[in-house]
């Protein structure tokens, strides 16, 4: 009987194909939106996690300033200096190596070419910390680092912008008023989890950067790599203790610096993505509700329109429950078809979007199942009232209906 009812429902749905399509459009859009949002959100979360893994999960960052990262926070606390870097390496066995890292944004000019790029002052150890190979040329020599010679290692994007595909080695680019010789080219890394281009960078010795670009011996950030077989968490605790000692923070006082590992960075980033995904999905879920109301609306119209048909069914011996079931199943089948189409188009949309955004396509079976069940539930909830109305019709009245 139930298969018969489902067959009849499908028959009724296809008898009014156009109206059925318009009816389920709300459900289709709602489900597609939710699925696309969640899938793309999941994809970008995965991307962040993958990026962090690439960057090295054993990388830590030390920054002056208490509490959260952000503008304004580091103004009150003392900056770091190069002695802190040496102390981390010399005094902590849990730190394999560390490097200073000062960054700013400048125009890089070569001949008539000109590009806005990120310029960082650091030293050779940085490339070791973040495991970034040089594919062409060489790294900074110790003499260059100590003398503050104006040499630089450039990222792939900067090369493309300034030199095209030609060999940049030995050429001089101008950064602000510094003329800087290109000695190396970094391996291409691609976009970061923020979507920023990691290859859009120029590295120069920290001494040169301090002297010629910022004019101060401050260091704004230290990158540190945990020693092999030492957990990042322990390294983090060690660094915090050493930094408190070096900065003479007495017990009970708050840190005036920050140590973060990449896991924290990752969870912060995925946290943002999750909140955004949640918000957008909630908005999309509202359209599911609207879709459900659309189904109820059409089912009510359908009951009125098919009053005579209901009368015929009652006359030939359908019980009230059989009529109720018929209309209920019709609403459920309709909304499940909508859900199915919505899931497929949502996944399609997410696949295209993931491709365009260069993030992994990560469909989640649980979300797909939930969306499908939800659309079925919409059918039950919004189909019940019209179905009950149909079942309660009086056969004589219904047969008389024109």
């Amino acid at each position, binding site marked *: *009987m139930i298969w018969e009812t489902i067959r009849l429902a499908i028959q009724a749905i296809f008898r009014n194909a156009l109206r059925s399509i318009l009816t389920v459009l709300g459900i289709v859009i709602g489900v597609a939106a939710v699925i696309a949002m969640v899938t793309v959100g999941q994809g970008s979360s995965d991307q962040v996690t993958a990026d962090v893994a690439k960057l090295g999960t054993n990388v830590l960052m030390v920054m002056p300033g208490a509490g959260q990262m952000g503008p304004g926070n580091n103004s009150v606390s003392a900056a770091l200096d190069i002695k802190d870097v040496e102390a981390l390496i010399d005094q902590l066995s849990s730190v394999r190596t560390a490097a200073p890292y000062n960054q700013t944004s400048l125009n890089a000019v070569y001949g008539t070419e000109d590009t806005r790029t990120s310029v960082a002052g650091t030293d050779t150890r940085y490339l070791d910390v973040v495991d970034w190979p040089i594919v062409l040329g060489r790294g900074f020599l110790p003499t260059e680092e100590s003398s503050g010679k104006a040499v630089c290692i450039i990222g792939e994007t900067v090369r493309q912008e300034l030199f095209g595909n030609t060999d940049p080695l030995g050429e001089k680019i101008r950064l602000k008023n510094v003329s800087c010789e290109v000695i190396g080219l970094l391996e291409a890394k691609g976009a970061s989890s923020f979507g920023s281009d990691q290859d859009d960078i120029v590295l120069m010795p920290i001494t040169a950067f301090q002297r010629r670009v910022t004019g101060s011996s401050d260091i704004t950030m230290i990158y540190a790599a945990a020693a092999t077989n030492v957990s990042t968490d322990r390294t983090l605790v060690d660094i915090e203790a050493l930094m408190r000692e070096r900065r003479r923070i007495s017990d009970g006082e708050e840190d005036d610096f920050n140590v973060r590992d990449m896991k924290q960075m990752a969870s912060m980033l995925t946290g943002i993505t999750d909140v955004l995904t949640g918000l957008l999905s909630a908005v999309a879920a509202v359209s599911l509700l609207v879709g459900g109301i659309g189904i109820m609306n059409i089912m009510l119209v359908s009951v009125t329109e098919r009053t005579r048909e209901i009368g015929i069914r009652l006359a030939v*011996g359908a019980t*009230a429950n059989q009529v109720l079931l018929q209309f209920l199943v019709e609403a459920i089948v309709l909304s499940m078809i909508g859900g199915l189409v919505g899931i497929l188009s949502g996944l399609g949309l997410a696949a295209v979007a993931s491709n365009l955004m260069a993030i992994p396509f990560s469909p989640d079976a649980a979300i797909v199942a939930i969306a499908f069940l939800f659309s079925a539930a919409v059918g039950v909830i919004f189909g019940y009232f019209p179905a009950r109305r149909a079942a309660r019709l009086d056969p004589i009245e219904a047969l008389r209906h024109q």
Partner: protein
Amino acid sequence: MADTMEADAPVIELRNISKTYGHGEAEVHAMDGVSLSIAKGEFVAIMGPSGSGKSTAMNMIGCLDRPTSGDYLFNGVHVGDLTKDQRAILRRNYLGFVFQGFNLLARTSALDNVELPLIYKGVPAAERRAQALDALAKVGLKGREHHDPSELSGGQQQRAAIARALVGSPQVLLADEPTGNLDTKLSVEIMELLKLLNERDHITIVMVTHEEDMATYAHRVVWMVDGRVERDGPPAEVFNHERHSA
């Protein structure tokens, strides 16, 4: 139900049935103390001017309606005591309906239309198909099984409707103005078909009509006026009397 039926007990027995619609000033007595007994195998035509209560009587006999007072016994069972669903089950097992407007489901093939009562009866698909094809053949619609009602002529539509009424092998066929929408030639065809079903298959037929020509196919005419049975007898007798009193 059939077990309780005695050999000569009437299939349909109305005992002093009244049906009232509305209240107070607006009260309408659609049926006013109707008593009527129809035996198995009869072919009865219910006639009368409009508003005489013949349609209400038809709905009553068809177990679509319940009396305000009086008893209706179908095969000895008090229909007034049955719930809506019990009456639906009674209709599906013992009654077949033919309407003036055919009342076939639109955009649904003749075959599917005829299968409809069997679906509610829970007959398995293969058997259902066989029975429906058989019923369609019986009414002369062989070869038209897969046509939609819109692709059938009025007479063919009514034949399909008769097939639908017959398919469950009902005891009683109820026909409400079955020829009302058809021209004379087709009307005669339909009446011949009903007559055949009555004579050959011994199906009890109760028909409402306002056409004397059609009523003459019946064995018995029940003439109603103002909700009461005024005359009840063979067609010739009833019509003769009506003509004389008119």
